[in-house]
């Protein structure tokens, strides 16, 4: 390794410990390394800004479990109930529980679809890996079952496939490697929208497209050519529902 390459390597990562042979023989690179380590200490100290006292915003109360939506019946103290009354009560509890679950699954916070999509992308950062390893056909088929949609690899290099919940519905969450980085695709056969919605943001260059009775969200990094991906995805995804 030449001096220039070695110096570039420690400039990129001062903890670089490769090529010890070159370092031991090159006084110039030894001096440069010492200089860079000193610079690194100064950078670290300069970056450590004083942090003001923590102010936690007023947090809204959120529903934390399905139990929140099930009414708890008071203990009744009167005479034993007859069998038909027991049946009626049991039915009421079941209905209340089902309603509770239904309410929970339809989104208690009433966030817009776009908000939910952005929040979901935020919370699965590990999906956004830059990689050239495609998911297997089996994995893709299990996440995008044939009775939901048909999706093949012609859309691009699919490197992530997971079933996720958006707006109370399980939807296939895929990541395709775009030109500028990973691009998130959410296939939402049950989310009907009337017109395309743009998802704006520095790093959220995206769109939700109406497709049949559902929609597809495509979210990439700023500057990503989404049009090409849109065309590919629209060509390769067909709703079966």
């Amino acid at each position, binding site marked *: 390794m030449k001096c220039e390459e070695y110096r570039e390597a420690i400039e990129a990562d001062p903890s670089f410990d490769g090529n010890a042979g070159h370092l031991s023989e090159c006084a110039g690179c030894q001096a440069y390394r010492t200089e*860079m380590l000193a*610079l690194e200490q100064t950078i670290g100290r300069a970056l450590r800004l004083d942090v003001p006292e923590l*102010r*936690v915003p007023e947090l809204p109360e*959120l529903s*934390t479990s399905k139990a929140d939506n099930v009414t708890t019946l008071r203990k009744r103290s009167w005479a034993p109930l007859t069998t038909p009354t027991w049946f009626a009560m049991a039915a009421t509890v079941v209905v209340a529980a089902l309603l509770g679950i239904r309410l929970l699954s339809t989104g208690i916070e009433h966030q817009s679809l776009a908000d939910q999509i952005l929040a979901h992308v*935020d*919370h699965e950062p590990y999906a956004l890996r*830059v990689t050239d390893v495609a998911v297997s056909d089996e994995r893709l088929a299990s996440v995008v079952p044939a009775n939901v949609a048909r999706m093949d690899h012609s859309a691009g290099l699919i490197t992530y496939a997971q079933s996720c919940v958006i707006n109370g519905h399980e939807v296939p969450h895929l990541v395709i490697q775009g030109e500028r980085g990973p691009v998130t695709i959410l296939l939402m056969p049950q989310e009907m929208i009337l017109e395309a919605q743009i998802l704006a*943001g520095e790093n959220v260059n995206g769109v939700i497209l109406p497709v049949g009775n559902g929609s597809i969200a495509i979210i990439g990094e700023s500057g990503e050519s989404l049009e090409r991906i849109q065309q590919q995805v629209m060509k390769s995804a067909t709703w079966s529902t």
Partner: protein
Amino acid sequence: MQSSKAAALRRQRFDQYVAVYHQDMYRYAAWLSRDRSIAEDVVQESLMRAWKSLDALRDEAAAKQWLLTIVRRENARYFERKRLETVDIDNLTASQAALLAEQPDEEIDHMRHAIYELDDDYREPLVLQVLMGYSTSEIAEQMGLKQGAVLTRLHRARAKLREQMAKP
């Protein structure tokens, strides 16, 4: 009863994350926005978003990355909303200048100015590496870049800082 216990546990979990990562969140936001006041707003918004979506975080080990990703997105949204123009270092607002408040150590002062003047593309990976302890592959993942691009940016960032620090 059961739900109030669940709510308390949820709050406890949130408070633990905030206690551990608040400083990282603030410093990351401050160096992304280069403005102390904006950083505080971004952190507030990020905490709110994190609270609402806490249940989506299933891997405890990913909490830091999760919170920093939220900060990154909130910062981007803030600037998207405000459409702020490029900062001219000779014409700073009070909260921008506060980031560069004079330090007793002249070397730190000098370095802070030099970091402030780095392009966003160079400053962010440097903050993630030096301050957050991210590896270059983790930075690549966080920023949606290839690892080679991250290495180039870091190398250029340090070369620029070295050059700036050599100036009187």
